[in-house]
């Protein structure tokens, strides 16, 4: 390298010099966001062999078994349900199709733990308290909570697909089923894989729902070790195991996506939904609406009845006074988190795009927090921020731990992946020749970004913002641990009630979370519809 410098042409040097600030920026941003995760991972430098031995002899095999079982069942279930329903509402015309298409996204607004406690209590009567606490029911609940990730992405992929490819397949002698299996599905595979990867991360890091059903996953084990024995190191090592699993999953997803370059040239002819026969109409409606019923309608009805009960006993009256306060807190936290995640996501994705594979990897490192359970991120953030506080680096003597800034930082560490993924995917769709053209015409990168790229990815940005907002609104463990005084979100209220099994008292805030979550869900739907218009 040192030898080569002299030989390099002046233009290369100039280009390199110009890109240096970019490198500094990307590394700095990534380092700040990855710091809490790095603090956790650093613990493996001091291995605690005896704890591992004990864990291996006792709980670890069970944890791995439960985690893998849950992962496989929920990912496969979500993929089948999400993909199937996406195809159903894309390719077939039946009464109520449009409404069903929207309603299937609604479970996004329903936190897994709310879905969990509602179904736990509902099925406890008929099934008995013992059989209701099973890994299978837990998997079913998580599938209902997470399939919309696959559904959304698969639906967009199906809609953007060219009907011509299917027609060609048919003309070459494929049956409709074969055409779907061999043409339609493979072309949507990258999107489906991206959705499945999101589901996998959510399953790996869930700690609220699994505990309701007595399922002890690795994420649960991290908390067990940490908070039960106070052994931060051993817990962090266990968390590193999770991060490792997540890195493998991301790599697998990349592999699935990597080889696939399914571009569709020429004028696009989208799939036109065709009418189905009477029998299939009934079948489609029944399947689609059953999912909506299980994931949304029944839980909502149940929650509303609980609110009625709470009012009858006078419990709700006192609580409703607090509703405004909690709503504002939820909005505030979700709002700040969304803005921060999207700003950093755009910056990172934009910088990384110009810096090849190394840049991509650096940016990806910043998104690892998505693979770390919330409570672990929270404690990683406390450790990192407490160090900053101790050195007194913040002007004015303000402290980061327990501040809104600290909370938003932690939520960004956890959810940056969601916005980054969305922004990166949108940026990738901007044709490189358009940018090259603009550059040739003398536009500087900043101008290209503001005049060409940003306008083009506007819809994608909106969708990414909505996803982060939904996640931040539902988030519990980080908010619980790091919220500043005066900031009690709706999720915290739900926790307070459910930690004492006061389901009835949890109904008001749960409903409020769902109602509030419907706003970003609506934005998301609008963005997707718009996205479809733009591309067609």
């Amino acid at each position, binding site marked *: 390298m040192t030898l080569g410098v002299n030989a390099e042409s002046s233009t290369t040097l100039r280009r390199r010099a110009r890109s240096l600030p970019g490198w500094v920026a990307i590394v700095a941003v990534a380092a700040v966001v990855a710091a809490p995760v790095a603090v956790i991972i650093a613990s493996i430098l001091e291995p605690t062999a005896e704890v591992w031995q*004990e864990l291996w002899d*006792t*709980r670890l095999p069970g944890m791995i078994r439960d985690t893998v079982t849950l992962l496989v069942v929920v990912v496969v279930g979500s993929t089948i349900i999400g993909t199937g329903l996406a195809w159903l509402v894309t390719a077939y015309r039946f009464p109520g199709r449009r409404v069903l298409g929207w309603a299937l996204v609604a479970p996004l607004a329903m936190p897994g733990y709310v879905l969990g406690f509602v179904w736990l209590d509902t099925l406890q009567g008929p099934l*008995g*308290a*013992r059989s209701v*606490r099973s890994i299978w029911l837990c998997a079913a609940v998580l599938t209902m909570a997470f399939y919309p990730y696959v559904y959304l992405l698969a639906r967009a992929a199906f809609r953007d697909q060219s009907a011509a490819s299917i027609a060609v397949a048919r003309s070459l002698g494929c049956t409709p089923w074969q055409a779907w299996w061999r043409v339609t599905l493979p072309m949507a595979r990258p999107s489906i894989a991206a959705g499945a990867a999101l589901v996998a991360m959510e399953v790996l890091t869930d700690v609220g729902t699994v*505990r*309701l059903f*007595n399922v*002890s996953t690795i994420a*649960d084990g991290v*908390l*067990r070790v*940490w*908070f*039960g*024995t*106070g*052994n931060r190191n051993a817990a962090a090592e266990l968390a590193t195991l999770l991060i490792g699993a997540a890195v493998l999953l991301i790599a697998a997803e990349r592999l699935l996506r990597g080889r696939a370059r399914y571009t569709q040239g020429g004028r696009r002819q989208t799939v036109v939904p065709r009418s189905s026969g009477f029998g299939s109409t009934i079948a489609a409606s029944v399947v689609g609406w059953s999912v909506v019923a299980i994931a949304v309608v029944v839980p909502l009805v149940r929650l509303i009845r609980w609110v009625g009960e709470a009012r009858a006993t006078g419990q709700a009256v006192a609580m409703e006074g607090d509703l*405004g*306060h909690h709503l*504002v*807190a939820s*909005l*505030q936290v979700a*709002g700040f988190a969304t803005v921060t995640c999207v700003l950093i996501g755009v910056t990172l994705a934009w910088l990384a795009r110009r810096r090849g594979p190394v840049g991509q990897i650096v940016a990806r490192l910043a998104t690892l927090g998505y693979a770390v359970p919330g*409570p672990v991120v*929270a*404690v990683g953030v*406390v*450790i990192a921020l*407490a160090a900053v*506080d*101790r050195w007194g680096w913040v002007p004015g*003597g*303000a*402290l*980061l*731990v*327990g*501040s*809104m*800034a*600290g909370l938003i930082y932690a939520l960004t560490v956890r959810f940056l992946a969601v916005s980054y993924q969305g922004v990166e995917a949108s940026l990738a769709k901007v044709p490189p020749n358009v940018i090259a053209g603009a550059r040739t015409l003398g536009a500087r990168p900043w101008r290209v970004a503001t005049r060409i790229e940003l306008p083009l990815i506007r819809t994608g940005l909106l969708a990414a913002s909505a996803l982060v907002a939904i996640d931040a609104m539902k988030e519990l463990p980080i908010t*619980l*641990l*790091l*919220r*500043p*005084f*005066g*900031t*009690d979100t709706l999720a*915290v209220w739900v926790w*307070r009630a459910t*930690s*004492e*099994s*006061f389901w009835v008292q949890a109904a008001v805030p749960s409903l409020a979370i769902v109602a509030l979550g419907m706003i970003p869900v609506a934005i998301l739907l609008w963005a997707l519809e718009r996205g479809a218009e733009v591309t067609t």
Partner: protein
Amino acid sequence: MMHERSPHRRLTRIVAVTLALGTVAAACGGSDDDSTAATPAPTAAPTDDVEATGEIADEAPTTEAPAPTTEAPAPTTGAPAASGTVTVYIGRQYGIEPVFDSFTAATGIEVRFTSGGDPELRERLIAEGENTPADVVLTADAANAELAAGAGALAAIESDALTSAIPEELRSPDNMWFGLSRRARVVIYSTERVTEPPLTYAAVGDPQWQGRVCLRPSTHPYTQSLVASIIAAEGQERATEIVSSWVANDPLYINSDTDIYKAVAAGECDIAIANTYYLGRLQLEDPDFPVAIQFPEQDGRGAHVNISAGAVTANAPNPEAAKVLLEWLATDGQQEFVDANSEYPADPTVPTSDLVAAWGDFTADTGVIRQLGELNPTAVEVLSAAGYE
């Protein structure tokens, strides 16, 4: 839940409307002098009291509170050097707001609190170190207080009021934490299906209870402390045998004492191990709730008793107010604090509520309380080794 008194809350709402302002206010929320910083403008109503006591604080910097029981209700006469706001991390979730309201009414000291799981709050406190905003920690069990003390996060409290009100075995030897209420973890049984409930914790593992037992998962501190007490009394080996015999009865694990009571009532199980005060809540709703308490180990060491502990943090921004809060909870506020949740008083001279008294007198295993923290990791090990969920 984090609680600002109502004027603050109103203010927070106004502040929140302008999001930017909101960040500023909240960002200051963690700073040392945040009682005023968190809410940009001082609020009208409580300010007078605060300032009144504030002046007295200047006159008497670190009084050793000679007769604390009399000072609390009269903040203008010989009150300790305390004023402003006391910040509390609290691991108890039930019915604390009215108690804090009474405290503020009695002393003029505002209470801010943030609630969460005991272990999570402990880890936060340890990580915050010298910059913690917390003055007081109120835990739901002894082990977490002792673990926090072991990590250097607590300060010793010199208080005659506390040492005279709280019996020796309910506080740490070095005065790091004080038990403010006692909570008994007992055998409970269905009054409809069980006539002879187990008389010891070990008897819960008797094969006759195969498939009839409900227990709380090992993730919960209550379970860990119970097992720690068994280890202290009977040794690790025997404790492992006992826990294994519970596991052999294929217990139904339910992560909520309330739900455990309900499961016994509903016939999901016939016996269980749970804390008594949950029965208090259920009996308030339904006096004929078909579950009864059997205090175990009455011919021996006594029923397992844990405490709700109070402690002052090592780096408390307002240690004087912290001490006043703990003293008040141990003395003038003791009855209200304990009755708010149907617990047993820490101060033996304070009577139990009628509801609680109806469950009967019992021998309590209080000697072990100081050891619960130290034995906690061993208890977690025993639970794991026995395959307890």
